[in-house]
């Protein structure tokens, strides 16, 4: 103002004109820079800045999806995933008093030095303190209010059945993916797919706005198995006690629904607890019933005989000369070590398990016929159950058979099968000649089978197999009070390193009941029983009897024989041919 006044009133002090112009230009340039900068930020560098801005407030949140439950056929859970929290820390953020440190170590039952080491490990941004803690412990830890502790939700699989269902169900890894057994076989259906969602969070971490679902979470499907947990337990209990009683190396048992081919139980001993993170040796992990092959021995004889009946060469009453127990094929001899008589009917060949009889029947057929009978019954090929590591078995091609091979196969040597395969093959006799596929899942209606033998042959075989389980047969111990039972014993020298071991055996029994209309097939196998007894009829048949009896009662199957005393042979049990 004064200046103005003075310029107006007093004599003008002329300033150089360039000064005002310079000022004007400078101001203009300054403004131009600001405009350019604004344009740069708004349009050219826009993306980067927008991202940075979003990163402050919007986050992608994972939505966890849990793994499906495995239940038995009645809905009893056999494997459940429950959420657990893993505790981690960002060591840079952590502030902890010695007292809190003490409590932390106590709650997690960890060594205090270890906790301290992990908490103060500043070389990492994130350190796991303890994985998969149960909720109760997590709550205690949260109450301590230690800053810098982070919770991560994870799922942990629990198996209420523990050892009982271990081999059947298998287990998952820490990340909840199937690793063994049905957990692995059904992984694609059981596994959940975690989803994610973009949200805006406020300063306190609350969700303020849900922007978009990037991916919807897909929880795994619940699966109902064909297994009946009560029968499973029975099977497990009996095989366990038999293995311990006979000091066997291992034992396996399979229970099939004879009409539908569903697996009702499958157990092995030794077993392990899948709930423990530390796993036992591979030998214990193996599901012997499905993945291990063995030479079945006499349990295979019915298939040779059925083939012979089918082509009409024999009837159950045809007579065969067993040559006093020694039958020569070229240089080889086949023995019946305790022949009772010289002439046996075909029924008696099965009942007394005569090797010579079976060999003679097999040799009277063409190799192709014998091979076809076995192949059609599912030997030499996977049972198609889809179980991880399922063994296919070995059945050599009939064009390579020499007569002695053909004879040996007829009584279950030179061929290897898995117990599951063997049990499944017996569906042929239980189902009027139809072979049923094996199923681990509960079926609404029985799967359709494949015809192997005619109705008539299957019924004749059933009648013959019933004679095995009589006081005059090799397996009177397999009898079940109140039910007619049909079955076959098997005892074979164990193959160790390609040679038959002279004093180690595999004892087995496969049978079905009630014989008037079979409902269940039970196959039992004990590997190397070492307490003197090794005959299938003595070692394996009692296991069959107790499991079958209890399971039939469990299923309320009506009796087809009067309840009463079980007849036992007056002297000793007929020993079968090995």
């Amino acid at each position, binding site marked *: 103002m004064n200046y103005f006044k003075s310029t107006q009133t007093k004599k003008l002090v002329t300033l150089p004109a360039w000064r005002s112009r310079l000022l004007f230009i400078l101001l203009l340039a300054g403004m131009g820079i600001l405009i350019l900068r604004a344009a740069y930020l708004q349009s050219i560098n826009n993306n980067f800045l927008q991202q940075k801005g979003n990163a402050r407030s919007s986050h992608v949140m994972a939505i966890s999806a*849990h793994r499906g*439950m495995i239940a038995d056929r009645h809905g*009893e*859970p056999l494997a*459940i*995933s*429950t*959420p657990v929290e893993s505790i981690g820390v960002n060591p840079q953020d952590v502030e902890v008093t010695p007292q809190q440190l003490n409590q932390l170590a106590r709650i997690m039952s960890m060594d205090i030095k270890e906790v301290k080491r992990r908490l103060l490990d500043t070389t990492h941004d994130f350190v796991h303190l303890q994985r998969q803690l149960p*909720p109760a412990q997590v709550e205690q830890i949260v109450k301590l209010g230690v800053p810098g502790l982070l919770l991560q939700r994870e799922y942990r699989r*629990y198996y*209420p*059945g*523990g050892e*009982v269902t271990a081999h059947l169900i298998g287990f998952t890894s820490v990340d909840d993916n199937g690793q063994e057994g049905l957990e692995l076989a059904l992984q694609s259906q059981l596994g959940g797919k975690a989803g994610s969602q973009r949200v805006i969070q406020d300063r306190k971490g*609350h*969700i*303020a*706005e*849900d922007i978009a679902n990037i991916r919807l979470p897909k929880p795994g499907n619940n699966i109902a198995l064909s297994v009946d*947990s*009560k029968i499973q*337990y*029975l099977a497990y*209990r009996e095989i366990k006690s038999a293995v311990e009683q006979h000091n066997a190396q291992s034992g396996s048992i399979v229970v099939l629904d004879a009409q539908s081919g569903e697996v009702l139980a499958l157990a092995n001993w030794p077993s392990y607890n899948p709930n423990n993170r530390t796993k036992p040796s591979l030998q214990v992990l193996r599901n012997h019933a499905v993945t291990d092959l063995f030479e079945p021995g006499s349990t295979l004889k019915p298939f040779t005989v059925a083939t012979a009946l089918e082509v009409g060469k024999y009837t159950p009453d045809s007579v065969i000369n067993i040559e006093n127990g020694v039958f020569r094929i070229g240089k080889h001899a086949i023995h019946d070590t305790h022949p009772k008589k010289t002439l046996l009917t075909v029924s008696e060949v099965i009942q007394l398990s005569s090797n010579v009889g079976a060999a003679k029947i097999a040799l009277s057929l063409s190799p192709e016929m014998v091979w076809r009978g076995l192949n059609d019954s599912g030997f030499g090929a996977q049972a198609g159950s889809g179980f991880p590591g399922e063994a296919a078995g070995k059945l050599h091609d009939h064009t390579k058979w020499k007569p002695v091979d053909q004879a040996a196969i007829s009584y279950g040597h030179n061929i290897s099968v898995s117990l599951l395969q063997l049990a499944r093959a017996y569906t042929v006799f239980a189902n009027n000649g139809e072979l049923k596929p094996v199923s681990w899942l509960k079926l609404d209606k029985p799967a359709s089978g494949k015809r192997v033998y005619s109705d008539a042959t299957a019924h004749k075989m059933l009648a013959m197999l019933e004679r095995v389980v009589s006081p005059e047969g090799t397996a009177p111990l397999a009898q079940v*009070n*109140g039910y007619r039972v049909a079955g076959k014993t098997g005892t074979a020298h164990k193959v160790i390193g390609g040679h038959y071991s002279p004093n180690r055996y595999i004892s087995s029994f496969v049978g079905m009941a*009630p014989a*008037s*209309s079979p409902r269940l097939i039970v196959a039992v196998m004990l590997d190397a029983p070492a307490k003197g007894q090794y005959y299938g009829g003595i070692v394996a048949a009692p296991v069959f009897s107790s499991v079958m009896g*209890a399971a039939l009662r469990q299923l309320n199957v*009506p*009796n*087809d*024989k*009067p*309840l*009463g*005393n*079980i007849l036992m042979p007056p002297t000793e049990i007929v020993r079968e041919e090995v």
Partner: protein
Amino acid sequence: MARVHILLVLAVIGCALYVVMSQHKARNLLAELQQETDRAQQMEVEWGQLQLEQSTWAMPARVDKIAVNKLQMRAPKGQQTRLIYSKGSHESSVRP
């Protein structure tokens, strides 16, 4: 003309306030939804744990042990069992 303008300005202000209010409501509702989903999840977790607990208590191995050791129960022998047919089931059952 000026009156129309004033009306429009007022309408705009009104709408703007309403937007703010709706946004606020939406956030509140979202928070509520979040709480409910958390609760649902919590319940699901609990359900799984209860199922697990139930099946652990009802495991055949445990029932077996208690029945035999504590309650002195045992399965009846063949001679102690009678089979009773309910009406109508006799025909359907298998003949001995």
